Protein backbone atom coordinates (compact mmCIF):
# COMPACT_ATOMS: atom_id res chain seq x y z
CA UNK A 1 0.00 0.00 0.00
CA UNK A 2 2.67 2.51 1.02
CA UNK A 3 4.84 2.31 -2.14
CA UNK A 4 1.76 2.91 -4.28
CA UNK A 5 1.04 6.11 -2.36
CA UNK A 6 4.67 7.24 -2.57
CA UNK A 7 4.38 6.95 -6.33
CA UNK A 8 1.02 8.72 -6.38
CA UNK A 9 2.47 11.59 -4.34
CA UNK A 10 5.21 11.82 -6.95
CA UNK A 11 2.92 11.93 -9.97
CA UNK A 12 -0.04 13.87 -8.58
CA UNK A 13 1.50 16.28 -6.08
CA UNK A 14 4.83 17.04 -7.73
CA UNK A 15 3.75 16.35 -11.30
CA UNK A 16 6.64 14.00 -12.04
CA UNK A 17 6.48 11.56 -14.96
CA UNK A 18 5.44 8.07 -13.93
CA UNK A 19 8.81 6.33 -14.38
CA UNK A 20 10.63 8.91 -12.28
CA UNK A 21 7.98 8.79 -9.56
CA UNK A 22 8.17 4.99 -9.57
CA UNK A 23 11.94 5.05 -9.07
CA UNK A 24 11.77 7.70 -6.35
CA UNK A 25 8.92 5.79 -4.70
CA UNK A 26 11.08 2.67 -4.80
CA UNK A 27 13.95 4.53 -3.15
CA UNK A 28 11.63 5.89 -0.46
CA UNK A 29 10.29 2.37 0.15
CA UNK A 30 13.80 0.95 0.50
CA UNK A 31 14.79 3.66 2.95
CA UNK A 32 11.61 3.68 5.05
CA UNK A 33 10.37 0.08 5.02
CA UNK A 34 13.83 -1.45 4.65
CA UNK A 35 16.44 0.62 6.43
CA UNK A 36 14.37 2.63 8.91
CA UNK A 37 12.11 -0.29 9.84
CA UNK A 38 15.13 -2.46 10.58
CA UNK A 39 17.17 0.19 12.42
CA UNK A 40 14.42 1.91 14.38
CA UNK A 41 12.02 -0.94 15.18
CA UNK A 42 13.53 -4.37 14.73
CA UNK A 43 17.00 -3.72 16.17
CA UNK A 44 15.93 -2.32 19.54
CA UNK A 45 13.13 -4.83 20.04
CA UNK A 46 14.35 -8.16 18.73
CA UNK A 47 16.32 -8.91 21.91
CA UNK A 48 13.09 -8.99 23.88
CA UNK A 49 11.44 -11.74 21.89
CA UNK A 50 8.96 -11.62 19.07
CA UNK A 51 5.79 -10.48 20.86
CA UNK A 52 6.70 -6.83 21.52
CA UNK A 53 7.81 -6.59 17.90
CA UNK A 54 4.48 -8.01 16.70
CA UNK A 55 2.61 -5.45 18.79
CA UNK A 56 4.83 -2.65 17.52
CA UNK A 57 4.23 -3.67 13.90
CA UNK A 58 0.48 -3.65 14.57
CA UNK A 59 0.99 -0.10 15.82
CA UNK A 60 3.02 0.71 12.71
CA UNK A 61 0.27 -0.64 10.46
CA UNK A 62 -2.31 1.60 12.18
CA UNK A 63 0.07 4.54 11.88
CA UNK A 64 0.70 4.10 8.14
CA UNK A 65 -2.98 3.53 7.38
CA UNK A 66 -4.14 6.56 9.35
CA UNK A 67 -1.35 8.74 7.96
CA UNK A 68 -2.36 7.92 4.39
CA UNK A 69 -6.03 8.54 5.17
CA UNK A 70 -5.33 11.81 6.93
CA UNK A 71 -2.82 13.29 4.50
CA UNK A 72 -3.91 11.77 1.23
CA UNK A 73 -7.57 10.86 1.56
CA UNK A 74 -9.79 7.83 2.04
CA UNK A 75 -10.70 7.46 -1.64
CA UNK A 76 -9.57 4.72 -3.95
CA UNK A 77 -7.17 6.30 -6.44
CA UNK A 78 -6.66 5.05 -9.99
CA UNK A 79 -3.12 3.92 -10.60
CA UNK A 80 -1.44 3.86 -14.03
CA UNK A 81 -0.90 0.38 -15.40
CA UNK A 82 2.56 -0.64 -16.49
CA UNK A 83 1.25 -1.99 -19.74
CA UNK A 84 -1.71 -1.23 -21.98
CA UNK A 85 -4.84 -2.95 -20.69
CA UNK A 86 -5.48 -4.96 -23.82
CA UNK A 87 -6.26 -8.62 -24.28
CA UNK A 88 -4.46 -11.21 -26.36
CA UNK A 89 -5.70 -14.56 -27.56
CA UNK A 90 -3.39 -17.52 -26.99
CA UNK A 91 -4.55 -20.96 -28.14
CA UNK A 92 -8.13 -19.75 -28.20
CA UNK A 93 -8.16 -18.42 -24.63
CA UNK A 94 -8.30 -14.72 -23.89
CA UNK A 95 -5.72 -13.29 -21.52
CA UNK A 96 -5.23 -9.77 -20.24
CA UNK A 97 -1.74 -8.65 -21.19
CA UNK A 98 -1.43 -7.23 -17.69
CA UNK A 99 -1.94 -10.63 -16.05
CA UNK A 100 0.62 -12.25 -18.32
CA UNK A 101 3.07 -9.48 -17.53
CA UNK A 102 2.53 -9.99 -13.79
CA UNK A 103 3.14 -13.70 -14.17
CA UNK A 104 6.31 -13.08 -16.19
CA UNK A 105 7.69 -10.56 -13.71
CA UNK A 106 6.87 -12.92 -10.86
CA UNK A 107 8.75 -15.82 -12.46
CA UNK A 108 11.74 -13.61 -13.31
CA UNK A 109 11.90 -12.15 -9.80
CA UNK A 110 11.63 -15.53 -8.07
CA UNK A 111 14.20 -17.01 -10.45
CA UNK A 112 16.57 -14.14 -9.79
CA UNK A 113 16.06 -14.47 -6.04
CA UNK A 114 16.71 -18.19 -6.18
CA UNK A 115 19.89 -17.64 -8.21
CA UNK A 116 21.03 -14.95 -5.83
CA UNK A 117 20.42 -17.02 -2.70
CA UNK A 118 21.89 -20.24 -4.00
CA UNK A 119 24.54 -19.03 -6.42
CA UNK A 120 26.27 -15.99 -4.98
CA UNK A 121 28.49 -15.69 -1.97
CA UNK A 122 26.26 -13.06 -0.39
CA UNK A 123 23.18 -15.19 -0.89
CA UNK A 124 24.80 -18.19 0.75
CA UNK A 125 25.98 -16.04 3.63
CA UNK A 126 22.40 -14.88 4.09
CA UNK A 127 21.14 -18.46 4.23
CA UNK A 128 23.80 -19.36 6.76
CA UNK A 129 22.76 -16.38 8.88
CA UNK A 130 19.15 -17.51 8.78
CA UNK A 131 20.01 -21.04 9.86
CA UNK A 132 22.35 -20.23 12.70
CA UNK A 133 23.43 -16.67 13.39
CA UNK A 134 25.97 -17.61 16.05
CA UNK A 135 27.88 -20.06 13.88
CA UNK A 136 27.61 -17.71 10.91
CA UNK A 137 29.31 -15.01 12.97
CA UNK A 138 32.05 -17.44 13.99
CA UNK A 139 32.68 -18.15 10.31
CA UNK A 140 33.29 -14.47 9.71
CA UNK A 141 29.96 -13.57 8.12
CA UNK A 142 28.81 -10.06 8.89
CA UNK A 143 25.48 -11.09 10.35
CA UNK A 144 24.13 -7.58 10.87
CA UNK A 145 24.74 -6.67 7.26
CA UNK A 146 23.12 -9.89 6.00
CA UNK A 147 20.00 -9.20 8.07
CA UNK A 148 19.91 -5.67 6.68
CA UNK A 149 20.11 -7.10 3.14
CA UNK A 150 17.08 -9.28 3.74
CA UNK A 151 15.08 -6.28 4.92
CA UNK A 152 16.15 -4.28 1.87
CA UNK A 153 15.25 -7.14 -0.48
CA UNK A 154 11.90 -7.45 1.28
CA UNK A 155 11.22 -3.73 0.78
CA UNK A 156 12.23 -4.03 -2.88
CA UNK A 157 9.86 -6.96 -3.42
CA UNK A 158 7.07 -5.04 -1.76
CA UNK A 159 7.72 -2.18 -4.18
CA UNK A 160 7.54 -4.51 -7.19
CA UNK A 161 4.36 -6.10 -5.85
CA UNK A 162 2.79 -2.67 -5.36
CA UNK A 163 3.66 -1.66 -8.93
CA UNK A 164 2.03 -4.82 -10.26
CA UNK A 165 -1.06 -5.11 -8.11
CA UNK A 166 -2.20 -1.54 -7.55
CA UNK A 167 -3.44 -0.95 -11.13
CA UNK A 168 -5.88 -3.82 -10.52
CA UNK A 169 -7.04 -3.06 -6.99
CA UNK A 170 -6.71 0.76 -7.11
CA UNK A 171 -4.77 2.59 -4.41
CA UNK A 172 -6.73 2.74 -1.18
CA UNK A 173 -5.56 3.17 2.38
CA UNK A 174 -6.99 -0.17 3.49
CA UNK A 175 -5.23 -2.15 0.74
CA UNK A 176 -2.57 -3.50 3.07
CA UNK A 177 -4.82 -5.57 5.35
CA UNK A 178 -6.22 -8.23 3.05
CA UNK A 179 -3.21 -8.36 0.73
CA UNK A 180 -0.83 -8.75 3.66
CA UNK A 181 -2.91 -11.60 5.06
CA UNK A 182 -2.94 -13.37 1.71
CA UNK A 183 0.82 -12.93 1.39
CA UNK A 184 1.34 -14.56 4.78
CA UNK A 185 -0.98 -17.48 3.99
CA UNK A 186 0.78 -18.03 0.65
CA UNK A 187 4.19 -18.02 2.31
CA UNK A 188 3.15 -20.57 4.94
CA UNK A 189 1.38 -22.90 2.51
CA UNK A 190 4.38 -22.85 0.20
CA UNK A 191 7.03 -23.03 2.89
CA UNK A 192 8.75 -20.19 4.67
CA UNK A 193 12.34 -20.93 3.75
CA UNK A 194 11.87 -21.30 0.01
CA UNK A 195 11.41 -18.62 -2.62
CA UNK A 196 9.80 -21.15 -4.98
CA UNK A 197 7.50 -22.19 -2.14
CA UNK A 198 6.01 -18.72 -2.05
CA UNK A 199 5.23 -18.85 -5.77
CA UNK A 200 3.52 -22.23 -5.43
CA UNK A 201 1.62 -21.07 -2.36
CA UNK A 202 0.53 -17.87 -4.05
CA UNK A 203 -0.58 -19.70 -7.19
CA UNK A 204 -2.55 -22.33 -5.25
CA UNK A 205 -4.11 -19.68 -3.07
CA UNK A 206 -5.17 -17.50 -5.99
CA UNK A 207 -6.64 -20.35 -8.02
CA UNK A 208 -8.46 -21.97 -5.09
CA UNK A 209 -9.74 -18.65 -3.83
CA UNK A 210 -11.28 -17.73 -7.16
CA UNK A 211 -12.67 -21.19 -7.87
CA UNK A 212 -14.37 -21.11 -4.48
CA UNK A 213 -15.83 -17.71 -5.19
CA UNK A 214 -17.31 -18.96 -8.46
CA UNK A 215 -18.34 -22.53 -7.68
CA UNK A 216 -19.02 -22.71 -3.97
CA UNK A 217 -19.96 -19.40 -2.38
CA UNK A 218 -18.50 -15.93 -2.72
CA UNK A 219 -19.44 -15.30 0.92
CA UNK A 220 -17.05 -17.99 2.03
CA UNK A 221 -14.23 -17.35 -0.47
CA UNK A 222 -11.89 -16.51 2.38
CA UNK A 223 -12.79 -19.68 4.30
CA UNK A 224 -11.30 -22.36 2.06
CA UNK A 225 -7.77 -20.84 1.95
CA UNK A 226 -7.88 -20.54 5.73
CA UNK A 227 -8.94 -24.17 6.11
CA UNK A 228 -6.10 -25.18 3.80
CA UNK A 229 -3.78 -23.07 5.92
CA UNK A 230 -4.85 -24.89 9.08
CA UNK A 231 -4.46 -28.30 7.45
CA UNK A 232 -1.02 -27.45 6.03
CA UNK A 233 0.20 -26.14 9.36
CA UNK A 234 -1.02 -29.19 11.23
CA UNK A 235 0.12 -31.81 8.73
CA UNK A 236 3.19 -30.24 7.16
CA UNK A 237 4.30 -27.25 9.23
CA UNK A 238 7.35 -26.66 7.06
CA UNK A 239 5.12 -25.91 4.07
CA UNK A 240 4.62 -27.82 0.84
CA UNK A 241 8.12 -27.20 -0.53
CA UNK A 242 9.89 -26.30 2.68
CA UNK A 243 12.73 -28.20 4.28
CA UNK A 244 12.65 -29.25 7.88
CA UNK A 245 15.16 -27.26 9.88
CA UNK A 246 16.60 -29.34 12.65
CA UNK A 247 16.51 -27.83 16.06
CA UNK A 248 18.08 -28.95 19.27
CA UNK A 249 15.83 -29.34 22.24
Amino acid at each position, binding site marked *: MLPAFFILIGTNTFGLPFWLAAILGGAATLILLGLAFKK*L*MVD*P*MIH*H*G*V*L*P*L*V*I*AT*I*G*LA*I*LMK*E*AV*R*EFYGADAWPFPALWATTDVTVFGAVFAVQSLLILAVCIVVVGALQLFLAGTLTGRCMQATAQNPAVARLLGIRVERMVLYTFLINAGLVWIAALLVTPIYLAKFTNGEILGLYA*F*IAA*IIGGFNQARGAILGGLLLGVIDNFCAVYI*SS*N*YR*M*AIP*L*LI*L*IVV*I*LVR*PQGLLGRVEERT*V
Partner: protein
Amino acid sequence: MTWSRKIVSVGILALASAFLLFAPLGLKPYGIFILSMWAVMTIAAIGLNLTLGYAGQISLAQAAFVGIGAYVTGWLTTKGAWPFWPTYFLGFASCFVVGWLLGYPALRVQHHYLAFVTLAFNTLVYLVFRNEEWLTNGIYGLTNVPRPSLFGYSLKGAKEFYYFCLAHLVFVSAATWWLIRSPWGRAFVAVRENPIRALSLGVDTRRYTLMAFAIGAGLGGISGTLYAPLTQFVDPTPFALGLSLNLLLMVVLGGSGYFFGPFLGAVVAVLLPEWLRFAQGYYLMGYAVLVIVMMAFWPSGLLGLADRLLKR
Protein backbone atom coordinates in the same frame (compact mmCIF):
# COMPACT_ATOMS: atom_id res chain seq x y z
CA MET B 1 7.93 -8.87 47.73
CA THR B 2 9.35 -6.29 50.14
CA TRP B 3 7.21 -4.25 52.50
CA SER B 4 7.60 -0.95 50.65
CA ARG B 5 6.48 -2.61 47.42
CA LYS B 6 3.52 -4.15 49.17
CA ILE B 7 2.43 -0.79 50.56
CA VAL B 8 2.78 0.88 47.16
CA SER B 9 0.76 -1.87 45.45
CA VAL B 10 -2.01 -1.86 48.05
CA GLY B 11 -2.19 1.94 47.90
CA ILE B 12 -2.50 1.97 44.11
CA LEU B 13 -5.09 -0.81 44.23
CA ALA B 14 -7.16 1.10 46.82
CA LEU B 15 -7.02 4.30 44.76
CA ALA B 16 -8.02 2.45 41.59
CA SER B 17 -10.94 0.70 43.31
CA ALA B 18 -12.15 3.98 44.77
CA PHE B 19 -12.00 5.54 41.30
CA LEU B 20 -13.91 2.63 39.74
CA LEU B 21 -16.57 2.75 42.45
CA PHE B 22 -17.22 6.48 42.42
CA ALA B 23 -16.30 7.57 38.88
CA PRO B 24 -19.74 6.80 37.36
CA LEU B 25 -21.38 9.26 39.75
CA GLY B 26 -19.71 12.13 37.93
CA LEU B 27 -19.76 10.80 34.36
CA LYS B 28 -22.11 11.21 31.43
CA PRO B 29 -23.79 8.06 30.06
CA TYR B 30 -21.18 7.75 27.29
CA GLY B 31 -18.36 7.88 29.83
CA ILE B 32 -20.07 5.16 31.87
CA PHE B 33 -20.49 3.09 28.71
CA ILE B 34 -16.76 3.36 27.98
CA LEU B 35 -15.91 2.36 31.56
CA SER B 36 -18.26 -0.64 31.31
CA MET B 37 -16.60 -1.55 28.02
CA TRP B 38 -13.26 -1.35 29.79
CA ALA B 39 -14.49 -3.83 32.42
CA VAL B 40 -15.84 -6.21 29.76
CA MET B 41 -12.66 -6.07 27.66
CA THR B 42 -10.52 -6.54 30.76
CA ILE B 43 -12.30 -9.84 31.43
CA ALA B 44 -11.48 -11.02 27.89
CA ALA B 45 -7.88 -9.82 28.30
CA ILE B 46 -7.56 -11.66 31.63
CA GLY B 47 -8.53 -14.81 29.76
CA LEU B 48 -5.93 -14.18 27.07
CA ASN B 49 -3.34 -13.38 29.73
CA LEU B 50 -3.99 -16.80 31.23
CA THR B 51 -3.44 -18.49 27.86
CA LEU B 52 -0.55 -16.32 26.68
CA GLY B 53 1.01 -14.79 29.75
CA TYR B 54 0.91 -17.76 32.10
CA ALA B 55 0.75 -20.82 29.86
CA GLY B 56 2.74 -19.26 26.99
CA GLN B 57 0.35 -20.30 24.19
CA ILE B 58 -0.22 -17.50 21.71
CA SER B 59 -3.83 -17.14 20.67
CA LEU B 60 -5.25 -14.74 18.11
CA ALA B 61 -8.78 -16.07 18.48
CA GLN B 62 -9.95 -14.34 21.66
CA ALA B 63 -12.31 -12.07 19.68
CA ALA B 64 -14.02 -15.16 18.28
CA PHE B 65 -14.82 -16.32 21.81
CA VAL B 66 -16.11 -12.90 22.83
CA GLY B 67 -18.25 -13.13 19.70
CA ILE B 68 -19.54 -16.63 20.49
CA GLY B 69 -20.46 -15.52 24.01
CA ALA B 70 -22.17 -12.40 22.70
CA TYR B 71 -24.14 -14.33 20.09
CA VAL B 72 -25.22 -17.03 22.55
CA THR B 73 -26.61 -14.45 24.95
CA GLY B 74 -27.88 -12.11 22.23
CA TRP B 75 -29.67 -14.82 20.29
CA LEU B 76 -31.19 -16.67 23.23
CA THR B 77 -32.42 -13.58 25.05
CA THR B 78 -33.99 -12.00 21.97
CA LYS B 79 -35.19 -14.84 19.73
CA GLY B 80 -35.50 -17.46 22.44
CA ALA B 81 -36.71 -15.04 25.14
CA TRP B 82 -34.52 -16.82 27.67
CA PRO B 83 -33.59 -15.13 30.92
CA PHE B 84 -29.98 -13.92 31.20
CA TRP B 85 -28.36 -16.35 33.63
CA PRO B 86 -28.78 -19.63 31.74
CA THR B 87 -27.31 -17.97 28.63
CA TYR B 88 -24.45 -16.69 30.76
CA PHE B 89 -23.45 -20.19 31.79
CA LEU B 90 -24.11 -21.55 28.33
CA GLY B 91 -21.89 -18.83 26.83
CA PHE B 92 -19.08 -19.76 29.18
CA ALA B 93 -19.54 -23.50 28.61
CA SER B 94 -19.68 -23.32 24.81
CA CYS B 95 -16.53 -21.21 24.67
CA PHE B 96 -14.84 -23.57 27.12
CA VAL B 97 -15.57 -26.53 24.84
CA VAL B 98 -14.57 -24.75 21.61
CA GLY B 99 -11.45 -23.42 23.32
CA TRP B 100 -10.56 -26.94 24.43
CA LEU B 101 -10.84 -28.13 20.81
CA LEU B 102 -8.79 -25.17 19.56
CA GLY B 103 -6.12 -26.19 22.03
CA TYR B 104 -5.38 -29.38 20.09
CA PRO B 105 -3.35 -27.63 17.35
CA ALA B 106 -1.24 -26.14 20.15
CA LEU B 107 -0.12 -29.64 21.00
CA ARG B 108 1.42 -29.94 17.54
CA VAL B 109 2.68 -26.50 16.61
CA GLN B 110 3.94 -23.48 18.50
CA HIS B 111 4.74 -19.77 18.16
CA HIS B 112 3.88 -18.12 14.87
CA TYR B 113 2.30 -21.28 13.44
CA LEU B 114 -0.08 -21.43 16.39
CA ALA B 115 -0.76 -17.73 15.93
CA PHE B 116 -1.79 -18.44 12.35
CA VAL B 117 -4.03 -21.39 13.20
CA THR B 118 -5.87 -19.30 15.77
CA LEU B 119 -5.98 -16.33 13.38
CA ALA B 120 -7.55 -18.53 10.72
CA PHE B 121 -10.05 -19.83 13.27
CA ASN B 122 -11.01 -16.29 14.24
CA THR B 123 -11.64 -15.33 10.62
CA LEU B 124 -13.67 -18.50 10.01
CA VAL B 125 -15.89 -17.76 13.01
CA TYR B 126 -16.32 -14.19 11.77
CA LEU B 127 -17.39 -15.48 8.34
CA VAL B 128 -19.99 -17.74 9.98
CA PHE B 129 -21.34 -14.79 12.00
CA ARG B 130 -21.58 -12.71 8.85
CA ASN B 131 -22.98 -15.24 6.41
CA GLU B 132 -25.35 -17.52 8.32
CA GLU B 133 -28.22 -15.07 8.26
CA TRP B 134 -30.82 -17.57 9.48
CA LEU B 135 -28.84 -17.90 12.70
CA THR B 136 -27.11 -14.60 13.33
CA ASN B 137 -29.11 -12.18 11.20
CA GLY B 138 -25.92 -11.47 9.20
CA ILE B 139 -24.64 -7.93 8.98
CA TYR B 140 -27.94 -6.54 10.25
CA GLY B 141 -27.17 -7.99 13.65
CA LEU B 142 -29.36 -8.80 16.62
CA THR B 143 -31.03 -5.69 17.95
CA ASN B 144 -32.62 -4.84 21.31
CA VAL B 145 -30.74 -7.35 23.41
CA PRO B 146 -32.37 -6.89 26.83
CA ARG B 147 -30.38 -6.08 29.94
CA PRO B 148 -30.92 -8.55 32.78
CA SER B 149 -32.34 -7.94 36.20
CA LEU B 150 -30.88 -9.18 39.44
CA PHE B 151 -33.16 -10.37 42.28
CA GLY B 152 -35.99 -8.33 40.76
CA TYR B 153 -33.79 -5.23 40.56
CA SER B 154 -33.63 -3.93 36.98
CA LEU B 155 -30.17 -3.24 35.51
CA LYS B 156 -31.46 -1.21 32.56
CA GLY B 157 -29.74 2.02 33.58
CA ALA B 158 -26.17 2.68 32.43
CA LYS B 159 -24.91 3.09 35.99
CA GLU B 160 -26.59 -0.05 37.29
CA PHE B 161 -25.23 -2.13 34.42
CA TYR B 162 -21.75 -0.69 34.96
CA TYR B 163 -21.74 -1.95 38.54
CA PHE B 164 -22.98 -5.30 37.25
CA CYS B 165 -19.98 -5.50 34.86
CA LEU B 166 -17.64 -4.34 37.62
CA ALA B 167 -18.94 -7.06 39.95
CA HIS B 168 -18.22 -9.62 37.25
CA LEU B 169 -14.73 -8.23 36.79
CA VAL B 170 -14.09 -8.55 40.53
CA PHE B 171 -15.45 -12.09 40.54
CA VAL B 172 -13.37 -13.15 37.51
CA SER B 173 -10.24 -11.52 38.96
CA ALA B 174 -10.70 -13.29 42.27
CA ALA B 175 -11.22 -16.64 40.54
CA THR B 176 -8.15 -16.11 38.34
CA TRP B 177 -6.07 -14.97 41.32
CA TRP B 178 -6.98 -18.18 43.09
CA LEU B 179 -6.34 -20.26 39.96
CA ILE B 180 -2.81 -18.99 39.29
CA ARG B 181 -1.83 -19.55 42.91
CA SER B 182 -3.15 -23.08 42.86
CA PRO B 183 -1.05 -26.00 41.58
CA TRP B 184 -2.73 -25.44 38.22
CA GLY B 185 -1.26 -21.97 37.89
CA ARG B 186 2.19 -23.31 38.66
CA ALA B 187 1.66 -26.02 36.06
CA PHE B 188 0.75 -23.37 33.48
CA VAL B 189 3.95 -21.46 34.19
CA ALA B 190 5.93 -24.69 34.02
CA VAL B 191 4.47 -25.41 30.59
CA ARG B 192 5.44 -21.91 29.48
CA GLU B 193 8.96 -21.93 30.83
CA ASN B 194 10.08 -25.38 29.71
CA PRO B 195 7.52 -27.91 28.44
CA ILE B 196 9.98 -30.77 28.29
CA ARG B 197 11.22 -30.27 31.81
CA ALA B 198 7.61 -29.93 33.00
CA LEU B 199 6.76 -33.20 31.30
CA SER B 200 9.73 -34.98 32.86
CA LEU B 201 8.66 -33.72 36.27
CA GLY B 202 5.31 -35.42 35.84
CA VAL B 203 3.21 -32.42 34.76
CA ASP B 204 0.62 -33.54 32.24
CA THR B 205 1.54 -30.80 29.74
CA ARG B 206 -1.05 -31.99 27.26
CA ARG B 207 -3.92 -31.55 29.68
CA TYR B 208 -2.69 -28.22 31.00
CA THR B 209 -2.16 -26.79 27.51
CA LEU B 210 -5.72 -27.68 26.57
CA MET B 211 -6.95 -26.38 29.93
CA ALA B 212 -5.17 -23.05 29.46
CA PHE B 213 -6.88 -22.62 26.11
CA ALA B 214 -10.28 -23.69 27.43
CA ILE B 215 -10.28 -21.44 30.50
CA GLY B 216 -8.94 -18.46 28.55
CA ALA B 217 -11.65 -19.00 25.95
CA GLY B 218 -14.31 -19.38 28.64
CA LEU B 219 -13.38 -16.00 30.11
CA GLY B 220 -13.64 -14.59 26.58
CA GLY B 221 -17.15 -16.07 26.50
CA ILE B 222 -18.09 -14.40 29.79
CA SER B 223 -16.87 -11.10 28.40
CA GLY B 224 -19.08 -11.71 25.36
CA THR B 225 -22.20 -12.51 27.36
CA LEU B 226 -21.75 -9.15 29.09
CA TYR B 227 -20.93 -7.37 25.84
CA ALA B 228 -24.28 -8.26 24.26
CA PRO B 229 -26.53 -6.62 26.90
CA LEU B 230 -24.05 -3.74 27.29
CA THR B 231 -24.24 -2.60 23.66
CA GLN B 232 -27.75 -4.14 23.28
CA PHE B 233 -26.77 -4.87 19.68
CA VAL B 234 -24.67 -7.75 18.32
CA ASP B 235 -23.23 -7.66 14.79
CA PRO B 236 -20.24 -9.49 13.33
CA THR B 237 -17.90 -6.52 12.73
CA PRO B 238 -16.54 -6.07 16.28
CA PHE B 239 -15.46 -9.73 16.44
CA ALA B 240 -13.19 -9.70 13.41
CA LEU B 241 -9.45 -10.12 13.68
CA GLY B 242 -8.97 -6.51 14.76
CA LEU B 243 -10.33 -7.16 18.25
CA SER B 244 -8.10 -10.21 18.69
CA LEU B 245 -5.05 -8.11 17.81
CA ASN B 246 -6.31 -5.41 20.14
CA LEU B 247 -6.69 -7.89 23.00
CA LEU B 248 -3.19 -9.19 22.32
CA LEU B 249 -2.01 -5.58 22.46
CA MET B 250 -3.75 -5.12 25.82
CA VAL B 251 -2.03 -8.16 27.31
CA VAL B 252 1.46 -7.40 26.02
CA LEU B 253 1.27 -3.66 26.63
CA GLY B 254 0.01 -4.08 30.17
CA GLY B 255 2.58 -6.73 30.93
CA SER B 256 2.08 -10.29 29.80
CA GLY B 257 2.22 -12.72 32.71
CA TYR B 258 1.52 -10.00 35.31
CA PHE B 259 -1.80 -10.36 37.10
CA PHE B 260 -2.79 -6.69 36.72
CA GLY B 261 -1.35 -6.39 33.21
CA PRO B 262 -4.69 -6.78 31.38
CA PHE B 263 -6.30 -4.10 33.56
CA LEU B 264 -3.70 -1.52 32.55
CA GLY B 265 -3.52 -2.74 28.96
CA ALA B 266 -7.28 -2.34 28.61
CA VAL B 267 -6.96 1.20 29.97
CA VAL B 268 -4.50 1.95 27.17
CA ALA B 269 -6.50 0.19 24.45
CA VAL B 270 -10.06 1.20 25.45
CA LEU B 271 -9.81 4.48 27.37
CA LEU B 272 -6.74 6.11 25.82
CA PRO B 273 -8.17 6.41 22.28
CA GLU B 274 -11.22 8.13 23.80
CA TRP B 275 -9.08 10.62 25.73
CA LEU B 276 -7.04 11.33 22.61
CA ARG B 277 -10.17 12.21 20.65
CA PHE B 278 -9.50 15.93 21.04
CA ALA B 279 -6.82 15.45 18.37
CA GLN B 280 -9.58 14.45 15.92
CA GLY B 281 -8.26 12.73 12.80
CA TYR B 282 -4.81 12.42 14.31
CA TYR B 283 -5.84 10.53 17.42
CA LEU B 284 -5.30 7.05 16.00
CA MET B 285 -1.90 8.11 14.66
CA GLY B 286 -0.89 9.45 18.04
CA TYR B 287 -2.12 6.24 19.62
CA ALA B 288 -0.08 4.14 17.17
CA VAL B 289 3.09 6.14 17.82
CA LEU B 290 2.54 5.72 21.56
CA VAL B 291 2.19 1.97 21.20
CA ILE B 292 5.39 1.73 19.13
CA VAL B 293 7.36 3.88 21.57
CA MET B 294 6.10 1.90 24.57
CA MET B 295 7.13 -1.36 22.96
CA ALA B 296 10.54 0.05 21.97
CA PHE B 297 11.40 1.21 25.48
CA TRP B 298 9.36 -1.06 27.75
CA PRO B 299 9.00 -4.37 25.94
CA SER B 300 7.90 -6.15 29.11
CA GLY B 301 4.84 -3.92 29.31
CA LEU B 302 3.81 -1.22 31.76
CA LEU B 303 3.93 -3.52 34.78
CA GLY B 304 7.32 -4.86 33.74
CA LEU B 305 8.52 -1.25 33.77
CA ALA B 306 6.98 -0.63 37.19
CA ASP B 307 8.67 -3.79 38.44
CA ARG B 308 12.07 -2.54 37.26
CA LEU B 309 11.59 0.92 38.75
CA LEU B 310 10.57 -0.45 42.14
CA LYS B 311 13.48 -2.86 42.26
CA ARG B 312 16.05 -0.06 42.01
